[in-house]
Structure formats: C-alpha cells, structure tokens
C-alpha cells in the first residue's frame, strides 16, 4: 500500500514519539530513579533542563522514561479493546439469533455507565496499579468496537460475495478470516487511531487520581499527582509531564484526523 503524501508529516511526528518511547532508557541525561535530596526541587537550569522533583530526580529523564510507560500501556490497552470488542461484535453479527441479542444487551448495560465513573470505581475495586487501571478501562471500553464491528458485519453479511463464498463451500471460519475481517479492518483502524489520544488521557487521568501507576514508576499522570501540592513552589514538576501528555495526545489526534480524511471517500 502506498502511503498518502498528506499523512507523511504526521506519521513522522508520531514515529518520533514512538522512537523516543522505545529508546527512552538510552536518551535520558540522568538516571530517572536516582534520588539526590541535596538537589531536590531545583528549578530548570543548564544541568537539569526541566528541573528536579522533591527527591532530586531529574524531571526531563522521568518525562522521557514516562513516555515508555504511558505509550506502552495505552497501546496495549487499545489493542486489547479493539481485538476483543471487534471479535465480540463480529461474532454477534455473524451468528445472529440469541447470542447476538445477549451480547448486544450486555453491551447496552455497559454503555449505560458514564465511562470514567465506571473506570474510576473499577480501578479502585481492582486495587489500583497501572495494569488494573488499564483493565478497568478495557472492561468498559470494548462496547464501542463491538457495536462498530457488528454493524459492519451486518452490512457485509448480505453482500453477494459472501453468498458465493458460502456456495463455494467455505466454512464460517474461512468466511470470517478471508472476507469479513479484511473488509471491516479499515473503519475499525480509523476509529482506533482516533481513540488513542483519549485512551492516553484516560489512563493518565486514573494515574493522576492515584488509581493507576504507583510511585516510584515514572508515568506522566502519576508524576503530576505526586507534584500536585507543589504547583506554586515547583510548577515544573507538574507542568512538564502535563505538557508531555498534551503534546503526545495532540500528535496522535492529528494523525487520526488526517487518517480519517485520507480514507474517507467524501474527501477525495
């Protein structure tokens, strides 16, 4: 597949963020976990470009390493919701009948919760930690993809090529893998790309409330939570990870928007 030219700058920006996350440990000027209380809460200067936190840890190094935690967790979470949700939706759409009714009523119930209200309570009940926070978001997040995949499958199911594949003797599994999945992948991927920014914000939000990554893990939301009381005296401790979340979300949102524009036939 040729990459549309309009996408290249955005892909490069997103690629840069991902590269930073992958090579984070090699890029940090200091050890992000090494404490030096004599240098606690130093304002940004030539040595510590973004200053230090209350344990004297270099904020820039922690922001860089934090990109790994945040991106890795967010991408894994997104991947889980998209595959599990689409699988449930596609199964419901293909099988129809009682299973379809059951799965869709179940997704109705999950959709009736305000997403973050459920996630906050679930993350709390599961006991906190980054994994549990992601699990809480996955529990409530799959419905969107189940609905989307089901709707797409219902349209595709009636297509002549499915009927002819069936007549040619293809099994349900073969039809699912060879014909249905390739045809629903596009819209699902665009939705996922547009969702990544929101996922990053939600996961960081749970960490910010103390329900996600635990100290001393360098994670952006948790870093902001730990520095909250120091907004007046040491704003760099909070504003640096905050800006990192904002920039990352903005870049992935830009990419998602452009991807949608490029793939949407109306814009051609």
């Amino acid at each position, binding site marked *: 597949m040729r990459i549309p030219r309009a996408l290249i700058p955005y892909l490069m920006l997103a690629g840069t963020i991902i590269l930073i996350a992958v090579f984070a440990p090699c890029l940090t000027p200091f050890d992000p976990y090494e404490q030096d209380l004599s240098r606690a809460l130093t304002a940004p200067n030539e040595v510590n470009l973004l200053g230090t936190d209350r344990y004297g840890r270099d904020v820039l190094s922690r922001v860089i390493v934090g990109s790994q935690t945040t991106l890795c967790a967010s991408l894994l979470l997104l991947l889980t919701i998209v595959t599990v949700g689409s699988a449930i939706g596609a199964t419901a759409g293909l099988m129809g009948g009682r299973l379809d009714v059951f799965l869709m*009523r*179940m997704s*109705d*119930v*999950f959709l*009736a*919760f*305000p*997403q*973050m*209200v*459920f*996630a*906050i*309570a*679930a*993350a*709390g*009940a*599961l*006991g906190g930690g980054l994994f549990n926070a992601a699990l809480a978001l996955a529990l409530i997040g799959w419905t969107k993809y189940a609905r989307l995949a089901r709707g797409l499958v219902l349209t595709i199911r009636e297509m002549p090529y499915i009927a002819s594949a069936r007549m040619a003797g293809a099994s349900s599994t073969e039809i699912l893998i060879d014909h249905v999945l390739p045809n629903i992948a596009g819209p699902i991927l665009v939705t996922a790309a547009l969702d990544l*920014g929101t996922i990053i*914000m939600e996961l*960081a*939000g749970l960490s*910010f*409330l*103390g*329900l996600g990554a635990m100290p001393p893990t360098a994670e952006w*939301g948790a870093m*902001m939570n730990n520095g*909250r009381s120091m*907004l*007046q005296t040491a*704003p760099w401790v*909070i*504003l640096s990870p*905050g*800006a990192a*979340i*904002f920039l990352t*979300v*903005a870049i992935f*949102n*830009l990419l998602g928007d452009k991807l949608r524009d490029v793939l949407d036939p109306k814009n051609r």
Partner: protein
Amino acid sequence: MNRYVMSRLLQLIPILLGITFLTFALMQIPADDAVDILYQQSGTVSEEIKAAKRAELGLDQPFLVQYGRWLEGVVTGDMGRSYISGKLVFETFIEKLPATVELMLVSIALTIFVAMPLGVIAAVNQNRPVDIIIRTLSFVGNSMPNFFAGLLLIYFLALKLNLLPIMGGDWRAVIMPALTLTLSMGAKYTRQLRAVVLEELEKPYVTGARSRGVDEFTILTRSVLPSTLVVIITLLALSMGSLLGGTAIVETIFMWDGVGKLAVDAILTRDYPLIQAYVVWMSLIYVAVNLSADLLYHRLDPRVREVE
C-alpha cells in the same frame, strides 16, 4: 407518543437491573470486605468475632441474596452506612449532589455560550484566518486532559495573575472548575456546530433565500440556527457521560465539595458503600438524561416520529 414513551421505559428495566448488578458485583472484587475495614482500626480481631459480624450484616449469605437485599435498598433509598463516617450513604450522596449539578449546569451553559458563536463564526468564514484560529483552539481543547487544563488554570489565573481564588466561599469559586470542564466540551461542540452549519449553508433553501435577497444575518438567525437545535440536544446527551466522569477529576483538583470528590475520596479510603451509591446514581442520571434527549428528539424531529 405515549406508546413510544411506554416502550422506552420498558426497555430501561433490563438496563437498570444490569447497572445495579454490575455495580454490586464490582464491589465484591476486593479481597477485604466491610468487616475487615470496620475492624482495621481496632488492631487484631479474632476470626470468630469477624464471622459473627459477617453473619449479623448478612455477608455470609449467597451472592444473589445479598444483591437482592442491596437492590431493595437502592429502590428505597437505604444504601447502608459509610464505613468511614458511619453516616447514611444515600443522605451523604444527596447532600453533595447539588454542588455537582451546579458545576455541571454552569459548564453546560458556558459551553453553549462559547461554542455557538465560535462554531457559526468558523463556518461562515470557512478557511479564512478566523476559521483556522477557531479550529486550532478547538483542536487544542480537544487534546488537553482536564487535569492538566485545571492545573494550568490554577497556575496562571490564581497563582500568577491573582485573578481568581483557587477555592473559597463566593460565587467565583465555580469559574475555574467550570472553565476546565468547558474547555474540552466546548472544543467538541464548536467542531460539531461548525460542521452542521457548513452543511446547512449548502442546502438549496439557503441558496433560495439568498437569491431572493434575504441578508446573511437573517438566514443565519432565522433558518440555520433553529436547525442546529437538534444537534445541540444530541451533543448534550453525548457529552453527559464524559461530563459526569470529568467532574470526579475536576472536583478533586479544585476541592469542589460534590459527589465526584466524594467518590474519589471514598475509593482512596475503600469506602465501598459510597462508591456503589456513586456509580449507580451517576449511571441513573446518565440514563435519565439520554432518555429525555431521545424523547425530546422524538418531539422535535418529525422524521424520527414517523419512523416509529
């Protein structure tokens, strides 16, 4: 019409049962139960005493029996007592609810007040500098997590410029938390309204009105804006979910004494009855808002009515 309302209400029953069941089940996950938390301050307590207390509270009953008893409590407004304060959960929740509702209403009003003109101005000036500026702003608002936006507002408006108090008794206390919620909501509304107005401006009746010499302002205020009303209702219903969730984070940042802060505090102290009440009631509010939006929609849009 009445039949439509009835059928919508009947459809709600399984949803409401599902909400309460899931919420109840969620709070059975933690390894420590009410009795453990009740006795955690009193040092080591023998397992016999704990078991007796469990029997007294009915915690040794089968899961479904416990759920049934709890559900009865939800309906009658008796959701037990807080593990921490010992106060009645339902009363505590109702006591804090007005503050959250106030915050939400101010945010919604502010959002419509900001997004309506911005969306229209952007659409009318499509691809001109004004449009590009408004689109950039709405993009920024959309990519900014509310906890970062809230802290930025505190940093600049309260700490640096001394314009507003971070918290306090007077009416100004609502401004910053409401602005925080407005930022992301307003960004979404502006974007949607711009798209809707653009679409509307291309319709034949607008061209017709123009060719008859009707001025642009009249076209906008008399024809285009009324047709965006339905969109605003849809947007309100859609954004209610993120607004209800957003209040938890924003109330925590601004120490706003509503149900969101109550819930976050309850989670950090493992006060499960309070969390259950919070989740159930927030979901009920969400369901009620969505139902009202559907019914209103049904009322306003003849096309929807005829399909039924």
